């Protein structure tokens, strides 16, 4: 049966807001095959494929969508995998509305093809099948060390292994995945998916050494001296920013990193079956307006908080979070306190958080980022009663590696300076990519950088 020529953009079924705030299971269920086919049929198969230009790794979007339409889901997955090592992850967390879907010809009519949902559908189909192990490449005898097992490191390692290089990933944490395991919550990205991707890498021959903090247990120079022919640094932007206001060190004030790490990586939401505790809050304020803030707010709700408000100093239009996440958070009952800036966190005599003092803001002239600068409104001070404050105002790179690698050039914000095309740093045989180079960005940008670096490393190893 031919689907109607102009079906509307297909919705993805999901858990209702009332239901899902009580559990940590994934919110959307994904398309059933029939829905996927209807959605795929909406694609105009433009020859120019503007959508591809919006994709940092240039997935062959019209081609995989055509395969879904034809019902050849396995081939759709294979096509995506050719350019994107982690499609099941990207189908869930990429900001498609700012990338491929934004450039879709149908977007002009307000309803772009749901490329992200289709990607997720094809990738999940692939994961459900017996894994395809690519034939092993002839060993090149070259060894590469990859530092950090986030999306940048995993992608770089996978590509190099498929080219026949011997790759070892060194990861500081006890689990690989980077932000995918410690930052992004289970209800948005099930950890089993990340695990499946990591398992695939291991089958491709990648070795992963966990509990290895480079800069401490070994330096970059020591890795090179030990016989690694090249090193890729993908250590992310892991250092939490604080606001620098009074009361920030009270009990009950968390960085989003700590809050999310406790809940996601350490599984504090299953305390006491898991040993890591987390405060069971009643009234929570999350400060910030990005994806990280949304994740923290939605996690707090699921941990049983009665009231969660999101305090952001600009207006909704400036919020850097994905629209879908803002929408989900609102549906679940997160209260948005916009144009509001905290000036002090208040404590009780036990050193626990009891409230927060804030100022109302209004938007003034645009600042360096092009967004209108929030300015305080005099006399607008007010207090809210709270027991927990989660600060999600951004992260900066960890200085651990730069500070132990003297000849590695570092930019003004602590980011490692690397060539945009090759990832080559100021130090011979050392490459870098992902958040450590760009500052906090996106999963797909990090993967793109890992991929380009793998290509450059391969060229260097085989050329010289």
């Amino acid at each position, binding site marked *: 049966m031919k689907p109607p020529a102009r079906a509307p953009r297909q919705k993805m079924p999901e858990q209702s807001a009332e239901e899902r705030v009580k559990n940590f299971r994934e919110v959307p269920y994904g398309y059933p095959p029939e829905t996927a086919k209807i959605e795929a049929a909406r694609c105009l198969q433009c020859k120019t494929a503007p959508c591809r230009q919006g994709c940092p790794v240039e997935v062959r979007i019209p081609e995989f969508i055509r395969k879904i339409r034809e019902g050849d889901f396995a081939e759709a997955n294979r096509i995506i995998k050719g350019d994107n090592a982690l499609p099941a992850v990207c189908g869930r967390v990429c900001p498609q509305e700012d990338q491929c879907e934004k450039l879709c010809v149908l977007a002009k009519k307000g309803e772009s093809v749901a490329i992200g949902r289709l990607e997720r559908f094809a990738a999940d189909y692939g994961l459900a099948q017996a894994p395809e192990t690519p034939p092993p490449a002839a060993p090149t005898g070259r060894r590469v060390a990859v530092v950090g097992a986030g999306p940048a490191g995993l992608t770089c390692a996978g590509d190099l292994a498929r080219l026949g290089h011997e790759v070892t990933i060194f990861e500081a944490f*006890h689990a690989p995945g980077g932000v995918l395991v410690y930052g992004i919550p289970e209800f948005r990205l099930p950890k089993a998916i990340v695990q499946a991707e990591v398992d695939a890498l291991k089958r491709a021959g990648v070795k992963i050494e966990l509990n290895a903090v480079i800069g401490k247990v070994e330096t970059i120079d020591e890795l090179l001296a030990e016989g690694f022919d090249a090193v890729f640094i993908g250590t992310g932007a892991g250092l939490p920013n604080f606001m620098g206001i009074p009361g920030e060190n009270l009990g009950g004030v968390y960085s989003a990193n700590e809050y999310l790490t406790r809940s996601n990586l350490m599984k504090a939401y299953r305390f006491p079956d898991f040993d890591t505790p987390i405060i069971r809050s009643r009234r929570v304020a999350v400060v910030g307006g990005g994806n990280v803030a949304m994740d923290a707010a939605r996690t707090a709700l699921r941990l049983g908080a009665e009231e969660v408000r999101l305090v952001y100093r600009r207006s909704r239009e400036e919020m850097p979070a994905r629209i879908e996440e803002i929408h989900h958070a609102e549906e679940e009952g997160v209260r948005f306190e916009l144009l509001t800036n905290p000036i002090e966190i208040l404590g009780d005599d036990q050193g626990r958080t009891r409230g927060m003092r804030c100022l109302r803001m209004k938007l003034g002239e645009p600042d360096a980022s092009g967004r209108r600068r929030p300015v305080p409104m005099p006399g607008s001070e007010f207090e809210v009663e709270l027991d927990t404050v989660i600060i999600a105002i951004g992260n900066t790179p960890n200085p651990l590696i730069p500070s132990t690698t003297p000849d590695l050039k570092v930019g003004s914000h602590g980011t490692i300076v690397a060539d945009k095309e090759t990832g080559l740093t100021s130090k011979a045989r050392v490459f870098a990519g992902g958040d450590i180079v760009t500052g906090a960005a996106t999963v797909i940008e990090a993967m793109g950088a890992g991929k380009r670096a793998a290509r450059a490393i391969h060229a260097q190893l085989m050329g010289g």
Partner: protein
Amino acid sequence: MFAIKKKRLIAPKVVLMEVLAPKIARKRRAGQFVILRVNDTGERFPLTIADSDAEAGTITIIFQIAGKSTALLAALNEGEAIQDVVGPLGRPTHIEKVGHVVCIGGGVGIAPVYPILRAMKEIGNRVTSIISARSKDLLILEEEMRAHSDDLKVATDDGSHGFKGFPTQILQGMMNGGERIDLVVAVGPVPLMRAVCEVTRPRGIPTVVSLNPIMVDGTGMCGGCRVSVGGKTQFVCVDGPEFDGHQVDFDLLSKRLRTYADLERASAEAHKCKIGAG
């Protein structure tokens, strides 16, 4: 997995373990620590590296059985293994020849003082050690500390061994006696470190303390370990663990240490019940 090579009870509820971790053993220096996770459901918690043997590839940790995690660790035997050990973390102790150094360790705090004492001695300082515990049977590493100190003084709360009273009284006595002290290093419970700092403050004797806040990652990415030093926020796992004791806000540290007191008590109780039932 990190194999346990040796395990010994060195005082009631105080366990010494030698753990196979060759890379850490090779790299670590006095003052550094590791973060451990006993098993897949375990939490991450820090322990100072008390000693290491680069040749054998082992590190020594000493801990008191206090909550669920240390109980789980203590339940492992020689030949078994710890799931995760990561390190060496933190900055090494600043070791310098200054003259006369007094090293003070209270309770299991003696374990972290031991490597610092040795490094201070090796570089040519005269070192006096003051170690303390509630009673004689709880005192650890006395022989080891004596072997590396020019002078060792012991204090117990109940007078069952050495001086009856607090180590701060011994320190005060040395100062009153006109003895020149160039540096004091104190590690132990927060009240002890705070008391030592109050004794040395009036004379302006430089005093280094090693802090033990709650940690998660140990690499600077969570900020859970933050303390206030001289009015500035510092992350103990990367900026410390040692700080100028006269600048530390001990009040804040002890309050932050109590953040999960209720939850942890519940977890330890549940654990005991499970063992009791099994």
